[in-house]
């Protein structure tokens, strides 16, 4: 949502003269770039447990962060007050970074976007702003969702349903005298059910999260979530831990994209490469996977959790090809890394809140569809694993080694999905797995779940992937 400039200036009780004064103070000790990030976030939450919405709340987070750069060095301070005196104190504290010896080079590549934010280009308009509704207006949706889940499976013994929403008003100013503003909504619904069968217990959770207003709380959303929560629960009760070893892995479309995010996307973030810690730091312009494969990080998908009108440095959100036709073509840049590499920022400078300086972070990361059919990829595997739900991925950026927990999947035997599997890990190496992609199906799906990236700070992201066949990964199972 993009309101008028004055709306934001009023919230933070500032004017452009004050902003210029703060920038001047920030640069007073020799820094060569300064930016100011204002945030006013209001949160709401409701929790349905044991059949009733008996817990809820509101939370407010308000403040301003001031950053000064001296070359690639960062000074940062923030205040929870936007009084001129408190902000000036922050600017002074951040300015001190320039006291440290540094090679100060002309900073940045100038202004990527001088115009004012355009409401017509808004990627997340709210038809029903969250703040326009009373909290009790959300209760029927939660109760309805719980009832829909309960009626789908008699083995359910517990259901928890929650709604969380937030609206962040953002105002940004910098020493290029660029003033940007944005209002970022986010609504998330999650549901967990615990099932009991013959003395065994299983649980399943699902979520939906979008940058949108309260109009997202529809009957169709409730139906979708209810169906998802019970989907595959029979398989979970029957699932086995398969025999471990190296074998082909077919990753199902959609949520498997988290592997792309963790195992490859982080290694493409420019700060890891600027510091020489990424395994891809000397691979720019080189082939990293088969021709025909494109890997993208995208801020432009309407309503997606990872979408942004502007990043947290005031750079317009955009679609960035990291891998094009199998060649590594771009890292994900914030202003610091863009200046380091002499390129334009890709609009990936993001932060958890005004309390943090921005870092290169992903938005919606996915692989474009290929030309294969998903069923053909499965049928091409004699013995392997099909995975449709991962969680708890972790990657070592330097080595590229990753491990992912498989929440659900199936054995592939002689080209057919057979026994369900669960509670196993898949381990591999990012560059090797990329190079080992043997087939990409034509069924790209962006997962609508509430994914949150935890690189030093939390940031909402989206991920997606078409069905993909990887020649060989290590699957941890029983002996």
């Amino acid at each position, binding site marked *: 949502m993009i309101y008028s400039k004055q709306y934001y200036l009023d919230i933070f009780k500032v004017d452009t003269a004050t902003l210029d004064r703060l920038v001047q103070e920030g640069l007073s000790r020799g820094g060569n770039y300064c930016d100011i990030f204002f945030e006013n976030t209001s949160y709401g939450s409701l929790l349905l447990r044991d059949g009733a919405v008996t817990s809820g709340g509101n939370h407010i987070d308000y403040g301003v962060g001031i950053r000064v750069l001296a070359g690639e060095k960062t000074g940062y301070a923030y205040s929870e007050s936007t009084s001129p005196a408190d902000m000036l104190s922050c600017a002074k504290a951040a300015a001190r970074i320039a006291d440290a010896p540094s090679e100060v080079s002309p900073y940045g590549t100038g202004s990527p976007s001088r115009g004012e934010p355009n409401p017509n280009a808004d990627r997340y308009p709210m038809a029903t702003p969250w703040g326009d509704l009373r909290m*009790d207006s959300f209760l029927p949706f939660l109760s309805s969702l719980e009832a829909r889940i309960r009626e789908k499976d008699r083995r359910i013994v517990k259901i928890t349903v929650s709604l969380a929403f937030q609206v962040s008003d953002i105002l940004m100013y910098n020493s290029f005298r660029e003033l940007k503003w944005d209002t970022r909504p986010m609504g998330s619904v999650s549901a967990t059910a615990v099932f009991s069968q013959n003395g065994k217990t299983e649980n399943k959770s699902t979520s939906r999260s979008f940058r949108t207003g309260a109009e997202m709380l529809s009957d169709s959303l409730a139906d979708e979530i209810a169906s998802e929560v019970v989907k595959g629960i029979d398989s979970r009760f029957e699932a086995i831990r398969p025999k471990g070893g190296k074998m082909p892995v077919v990753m199902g479309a959609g949520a498997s994209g988290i592997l792309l995010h963790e195992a490859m996307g982080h290694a493409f973030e420019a700060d890891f490469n600027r510091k020489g810690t990424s395994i891809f730091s000397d691979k720019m312009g080189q082939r990293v996977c088969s021709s025909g494969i494109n890997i993208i990080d995208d801020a432009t998908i309407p309503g997606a959790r990872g979408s942004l009108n502007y990043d947290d440095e005031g750079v317009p959100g955009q679609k960035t090809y990291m891998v094009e036709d199998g060649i590594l073509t771009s890292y994900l840049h914030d202003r610091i890394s863009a200046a380091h590499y002499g390129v334009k920022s890709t609009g990936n400078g993001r932060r958890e809140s005004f309390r943090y300086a921005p870092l290169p972070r992903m938005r919606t990361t996915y692989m474009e569809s290929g030309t294969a059919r998903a069923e053909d990829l499965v049928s091409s595997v004699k013995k392997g694993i099909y995975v449709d739900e991962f969680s708890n991925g972790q990657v070592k950026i330097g080595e590229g080694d990753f491990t992912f927990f498989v929440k659900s999947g199936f054995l592939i035997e002689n080209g057919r999905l057979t026994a369900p599997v669960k509670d196993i890990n898949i381990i591999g190496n990012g560059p090797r797995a990329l190079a080992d992609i043997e087939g990409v199906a034509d069924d790209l799906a962006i997962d609508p779940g509430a994914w949150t990236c935890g690189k030093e700070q939390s940031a909402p992201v989206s991920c997606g992937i078409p069905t993909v066949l990887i020649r060989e990964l290590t699957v941890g199972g029983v002996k």
Partner: protein
Amino acid sequence: MKLTANEISIAEYCRDFCLRSGADKVRVTLTKSLMDLTGILNGEIDKTARALDRSIQLAIFADGRFGTFSSNRLDKEGLEEFILKAISTVKMLEADPFRNLPAPERLAKDAASGNELELYDPHYESLESNWRRDFSLGTSIWARKESIENGFRIIAEEGEYSDSVFDSLTIDSQGLYARHMETSFEIGYEVTVEDKDGNRYSSYWWDASPLLKDLKAVDCAEKAALRAAAQIGPEGIGSGKYAVVVDAECASKLLTPVLNALGGYALQQKNSFLEGALEKKIFPEVLDIWDCPREKGQTGSRLFDSEGVGTRTAPIIEKGVVKQYFLNTYVAAKMGMEPTVEDATRVVVKPIGECKTADDLLAKVRDCIYVTGFNGGNSNTSTGNFSYGIEGFLVKDGKIVCPLREMLMTGDFITLWNSIFATADDARPCMSKLIPTLAFANVDISA
């Protein structure tokens, strides 16, 4: 940077204003913290940050209903408006007869000054930005990296030093006044090295203490570098059942899910593999795990939990018997049980056997996999099954033979903990869970 009298009066005003405005009961928690951080990249200052936070949290009970609220806007007028809206919101929720403040006799009565546990280091007040810069730079090994490089090259060194002060006050409408204050000093390094073939390996080391004199900062970066270099030349081994020694640095990965399974919400929601385990011998006779929250000057100590309930030294698992669930007032009422505390505060796994160090333990076990880190994986809270990526070393005749990679450790927690047969006595005091290096028999390893 401690809470001021004026800030404390704001908390008291909020409590009273809630009661005047329709709340039946209320708990107010006021927190304030200040942190200064200095980042080092390859021997130079890379970033500095100063963070001052204040916020107020309200737990409001009204008409048999309950809600939680927080704001960092502490001006009186704004707070009044916020509280009125909060109470209005609470009254829109459904009634819940189990919501209540803790019984007064359970509340902490010995946390008046906030420094009863001696976690506040007065030296903090004299620290200045120049000292922070010099101290941080002094921990870097970049300028002398050639003296450390031995068959490898250090290609990146990234470190952070931070110091902070945290002060909180929790009061409620039945007379609770509980304050907790502590300083914290932390250092952490991540170092990436490259072998002669261009392969990269990275690792970390860190330390922390509430008291500056106890911070072990000098060798932090070097330890990180040596840990990274130790991974050079990994080999694979066959899948099978192995004795596994898990280093104290990462052993909490195996205990935290057990503690979570003893938590009230998991139990009440029937989502715990330890449901029905109270007072039953689930674990081996040799296993004693205690909550020791009241040790002076020790990381993680606290006199009260988030409800203001006084903590106490008590067994969690004693001679293999589960002695405690973690039940706050609400969950205990729903389960029809006696409340305890919200969560384990400072967990201590009592050593088993005579070994002092990890090396002693490796010499005792002789042939095993020595796990020094976990890489991904997960556990199932309902079943207790787990599967973790591990990194570490193959050990033969008590000596490290080679690093290992792409290995997984799988099993279920009850079986795993029943296979524990020895520990070292080397729990790291910088952690709030004091777990020594652990030795387990017959663990499934996939490689």
